């Protein structure tokens, strides 16, 4: 039998298709079958996509479905690369790691949505280098956390606590205004 498609080579592949219960058999040579085979998908590409998808699923971000779509979205999206190390946010999504400290600055608006998935907050509340007790930053952080507590107290209708917290915040703000020096 001769290949139905090129009509030149010997047909060696039989493709049986069942579409809506209708069975059809077609005969191709190996070369043509390679081009026509309905299951002939480039598996490598698929695999890469799966991995990327896994990572971005984990981070809870959408991933572009196909290369064509990807190109489209990329043109509409302004891709910012980190000026220091040149890595892009997409690269970060792929391997979950950043290139340099500057990246945090570069992707500062996109990172929080990733961080909420893997951390318990998006703001640092711990140690600060060069900390002294009256440090500007420490005060700010303290005010922030006291405000959170105040909100919590209001929600839970603990108004006595809330009043105390409000006074505390005032005190802290006064300290902040006088440049961190605690003057009476």
């Amino acid at each position, binding site marked *: 039998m001769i290949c139905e498609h090129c009509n030149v080579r010997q047909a060696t592949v039989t493709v049986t298709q069942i579409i809506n219960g209708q069975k059809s058999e077609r005969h191709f040579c190996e070369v043509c079958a390679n081009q026509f085979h309905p299951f002939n998908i480039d598996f490598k590409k698929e695999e890469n996509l799966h991995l990327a998808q896994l990572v971005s699923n984990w981070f809870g971000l959408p991933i572009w479905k196909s290369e064509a779509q990807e190109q489209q979205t990329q043109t509409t999206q302004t891709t910012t690369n980190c000026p*220091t*190390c040149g*890595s892009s946010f997409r690269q970060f999504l792929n391997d*979950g*790691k*950043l*290139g*340099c*400290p500057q990246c*945090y*600055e570069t992707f*500062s608006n996109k*990172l929080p949505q*990733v*961080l909420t998935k*893997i*951390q*318990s*907050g*998006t*703001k*640092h*509340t*711990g*140690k*600060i*280098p*060069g900390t002294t007790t009256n440090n500007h*930053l420490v005060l700010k952080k303290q005010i922030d956390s006291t405000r959170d507590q105040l909100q919590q107290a209001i929600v839970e209708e603990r108004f006595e606590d809330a009043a105390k917290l409000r006074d505390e915040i005032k005190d802290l703000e006064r300290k902040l205004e006088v440049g961190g020096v605690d003057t009476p």
Partner: protein
Amino acid sequence: MNLEHFLKNEAPSWMSKSGTDADIVISTRIRLARNLEGYKFPRVSSEQEAKHVDNVVTNALLNIKKGERNFSHFTIKEMPALQRQVLVEKHLISPLLAKKEKSASVVLSNDESISVMVNEEDHLRIQCLSPGFQLFETYEIADQLDSYLEKHLPYAFNETFGYLTCCPTNVGTGLRASVMMHLPALTMSNQMKVITQMLTRLGMVVRGIYGEGSENLGNMYQISNQVTLGKSEQEILEDLQNVVSQIIQNERNARGSLMKQAPIALEDRIQRALGTLKYARIMTSDEAATCLSNVRLGVDLGLIKGIPISILNECMIFIQQGFVQQYAGTTLQATERDLFRAKLLREKLNVENQNSKEKGEEKYDV
């Protein structure tokens, strides 16, 4: 100090002191991840950049005034593979660092309680180890070193994100506090699965003793915080402290009920393990770890006398393949390793028994 000091067949000296709850908590580890401003993270940095980071960090550490602590610096590239493995097994360096070809190095304190890895995933990984359950005390040591280093190194820090790290799972405090626990009774009574799930919900992780991916060899578990951002160091440590205290209590209860319900079966298991360790000729690392766990339980419950816990701690490190090969003085096939491992354990345990016997006799004389 030369490298041999850190490779000899002895447990590190910090391990000889006993800590609180030492019957259940073997050791406490604090790790701080830090990076330097203006340098790319090690995974993308150039050889030259990495070397510069190494120099800057090493100088800062070696300049620490004498009398306080002495540090020694070792370049990973210059070490033979077996020596690297021994350091990994002692938890002084990570498996990742051991594989690094770029200017990666480690700076060790003489008692091995502090190790600073340079150019691992982050520029600096400050690690402090203590025996027993001492989260706050150990953090204090790490914090002091960190505060000293920040005066000499330009740390990458950001007001919102805290200490910046290569992987966002470490950003913020950069703090990973872990506690190595021996939980045979909870394992025997199949409670570990529930505990593991519970801990995951609390933002903590349970791992095998040899880090990510290793199974619960010898009923040893490493429990550590997962979250590093949004909580202060104090909160992270307190949370872990509370959880670990509860697990200690549960383990004690489980041990108590084991003793009540099946004292003979338990003692049989424990004494068999001791016999195996003392007389076996072929010993895989799995079997050795299991037997050591049973003997440790026996010592803790007072069923075995005359074996100090320090010897068991030592054996736990020595049964690993790098150490066995170092003991043999050559690289070995797996089957050969099992022979040497059995020999090593026999020596350790039988020698120790003789010593304690002698000591006992002396007591009678005096």
